[in-house]
């Protein structure tokens, strides 16, 4: 059980506080309710580029990292298709430094041309390093485009193309800040050995005077129901043929999300899953195979991915994949297997909750979904799932016309 307190400032900032008496450190986590799904299709990669700019100095403080490091702390951030999350970890007695820095960059940024120009280059190098200069590095760009036709999940957080980042203008950056970076679009979470009154007083001291702005409504294009199975083949300079089956799955707040998550754990279990035993061990069709979910807030993807062994064909694989899928829609998972998965989940969760930063990020994320207390309810939901629930869910999930398949074919003489 993770105890927490929640309070709201007059300007709309939601604050969560979790007391942890055993640590000399403090965590300050800020989740901004903005991600790549909030970008326009002509200007993609912006939420992420913006995350970089948030470290380029704010209106009253020329450098973000320096003062935090001088306080013995460290900071980083990540952007997803749904959110942008910033965090600071520092000695608890220097909590003020993190609140001071974070409140100033929520108030306003420095917006220097130099910072924009440099971060554009840095992000372009990141684009190359992570997406273009790696075998299979660009597959997620392809899968998104294949699986989504209208919803902004059709592009990756890094952006659709390098050109969008090259073209980013200062006026775009300022408009983006104005729209998304203000108290009512943020959830602040503080963890450390503090008293609630102290946290209230310090947070109000630094964040209280930031002007209120209206949270803008999010109206995203709905993804139309798919009417047929879609498949695409790309040829790349890769060492082995690879496949990526993707099925549309329920959004984060739908109970079906938990069923999808558990089902993917069962189907993708290392070394023992039916897929692994049948396709890797018995038939020697693939060298590796996995199942997992994308975990997004809006309608996500249930993935089955892997690599073909030399000389094996996509057609043979396809037959076997559908056989396995059919198995889960017909046969109940044994009680024993379900119990194994559930206890593994309990272990994994206990280890996750060990980390202060993890707790801060999870509390903030559940608050975004509607209630931070969701963090304490999630395990119960998983533990209450029955084998029959999973079978019925699999039947709904694995409808062929809900699926897409990306095949990455190895270039000849590569």
């Amino acid at each position: 059980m993770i105890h927490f307190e929640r309070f709201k400032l007059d300007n709309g900032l939601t604050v969560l506080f979790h007391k942890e008496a055993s640590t000399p450190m403090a965590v300050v986590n800020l989740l901004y309710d903005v991600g790549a799904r909030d970008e326009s299709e002509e200007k993609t990669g912006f939420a992420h580029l913006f995350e970089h700019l948030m470290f380029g100095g704010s209106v009253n403080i020329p450098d973000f990292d320096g003062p935090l490091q001088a306080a013995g702390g460290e900071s980083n951030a990540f952007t997803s298709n749904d959110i942008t999350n910033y965090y600071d970890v520092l000695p608890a007695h220097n909590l003020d430094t993190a609140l001071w820095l974070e409140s100033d960059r929520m108030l306003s940024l420095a917006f220097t041309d130099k910072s924009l120009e440099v971060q554009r280059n840095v992000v372009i190098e990141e684009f190359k390093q992570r997406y273009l200069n790696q075998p299979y590095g660009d597959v997620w760009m392809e899968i998104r485009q294949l699986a989504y036709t209208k919803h902004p999940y059709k592009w990756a957080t890094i952006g659709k193309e390098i050109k969008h980042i090259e073209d980013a203008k200062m006026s775009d950056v300022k408009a983006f800040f104005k729209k998304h970076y203000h108290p009512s679009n943020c959830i602040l979470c503080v963890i450390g050995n503090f008293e609630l009154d102290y946290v209230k007083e310090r947070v109000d001291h630094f964040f209280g005077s930031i002007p209120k702005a209206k949270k803008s409504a999010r109206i995203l294009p709905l993804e139309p129901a798919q009417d047929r199975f879609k498949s695409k083949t790309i040829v790349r300079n890769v060492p082995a043929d690879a496949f990526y089956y993707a099925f549309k799955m329920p959004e984060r707040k739908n109970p079906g999300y938990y069923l999808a998550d558990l089902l993917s754990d069962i189907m993708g279990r290392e070394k023992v899953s039916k897929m692994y035993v049948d396709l890797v061990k018995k038939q020697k069709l693939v060298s590796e195979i996995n199942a997992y979910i994308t975990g997004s807030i809006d309608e996500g993807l249930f993935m089955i991915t892997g690599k073909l062994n030399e000389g094996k064909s996509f057609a043979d694989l396809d037959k076997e994949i559908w056989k396995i899928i059919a198995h889960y829609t017909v046969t109940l998972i044994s009680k024993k297997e379900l119990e194994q998965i559930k206890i593994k989940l309990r272990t994994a969760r206990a280890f996750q909750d060990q980390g202060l930063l993890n707790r801060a990020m999870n509390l903030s994320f559940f608050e975004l979904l509607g209630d931070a207390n969701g963090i304490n309810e999630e395990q119960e939901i998983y533990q209450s799932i029955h084998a029959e629930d999973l079978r019925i869910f699999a039947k709904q999930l694995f409808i062929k016309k809900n699926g897409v398949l990306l095949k990455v074919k190895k270039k000849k003489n590569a």
Partner: protein
Amino acid sequence: MLNRQVAPKLTPIKSIDFSVPEMVEIHAGIPLYWKNNIANETAKMELHFNAGTTIETPILASLTAGLLISGTKTKSAIQIHHALDAVGAYYDVSVSQEQAVVTLYALNSYLKQAFDIFHEALTAAIFPEKEVQEICNERQEKLKVQLQKVNVLAQRKIQQVLFEETPYSQVISQRDYATVKRTDLIEFHQKHYLKGLSKVFLVGDFSKDVMLDIKTACADFVGKAFQPENCTFSGKAHIEHQEKSDALQTAIRIGKIMFNKTHPDFISFSVMNTILGDYFGSRLMSNIREDKGYTYGIGSYMMENTHFGYFMIATEVAKEVREATIQEVKNELERLQTELVPAEELELVKSYLLGQLLKAADGPYAMLDLFSGVELHGMDISFYNKYIQKVQEITAEEIREMACKHLDWKSLSIISVG
């Protein structure tokens, strides 16, 4: 009224509480360390074996480690994995140059059972031919992917250059998979696992009896205390660029053989290294990423083995700025060798390092890792008190001296691929 331009007052860190785990001897020279005051139900067990890549060949070390729970006369690999799953345990094995470390994660009430399952699997492992073929196939496929990456190619190359003609220079190649024999793995397992346990780290809130049971069972694997061969390295600097025409970026590695914690200069050198490239505000990051935008990231690191350490600068940059990047690295080294670090920067780095040490000592898991870092070198936890004192006292002159003494540009090997 809040004046946002004024930074809040900082409180410096004066001292940190370090705690030592309880120790029992499994056998003479083979310790089990136990940290038991855990506030939650997590537990972990690390078994260190003298089975790293340098003890024989990397292919034997790597495949044997991958096949530790691949089946016994009475149980298949799948049955063993199911048994571990039934107690909710996670199993992991990692192989470094000097050690193979098996880690079990579980809830504290199940850790002993997880260990029993592992114990039986390891003791009676038969390395079925089928399992050997499967892992070879899987690893070969993974290696093919790895060998397309410029950072991997550069890393392998500099390892070969720095550790030339010693076991530390060996890397796995595709050929190794064709020639490796099952009987060699069995022999490796006999020698380096069944008689290769060198120490155990245990974290978890269970009774002393449980810990003692675990200790007794560990005695089945004891061998010699860990003592890798003391190699001498040529120290010759080597510069090489490998062209990879389809690459979009160039990976650069700049490094040399260095010392480890046992050397009197270690702490001073680490402070200098932090300023150079080991934190987000470092000079390499400030110049090459934040000013020039050549890269997504650049860093410099100190790596440690039992008898030596090495120093490495690593980055991936746009292809057209390879020369310019190397030149900027050289400039930054020269700046450290000729100019004194400004007081403000030095103070910042001192506070940063002490804050990071406070974090590294936070909680039983972190504390045990810190302890492990000194135990490896036969040192005790008082090293960290010396570290705090040295970091507080170090002067700009000493920083400059460290850069001059240990980072002569001509002594560095430079490898680039891309």
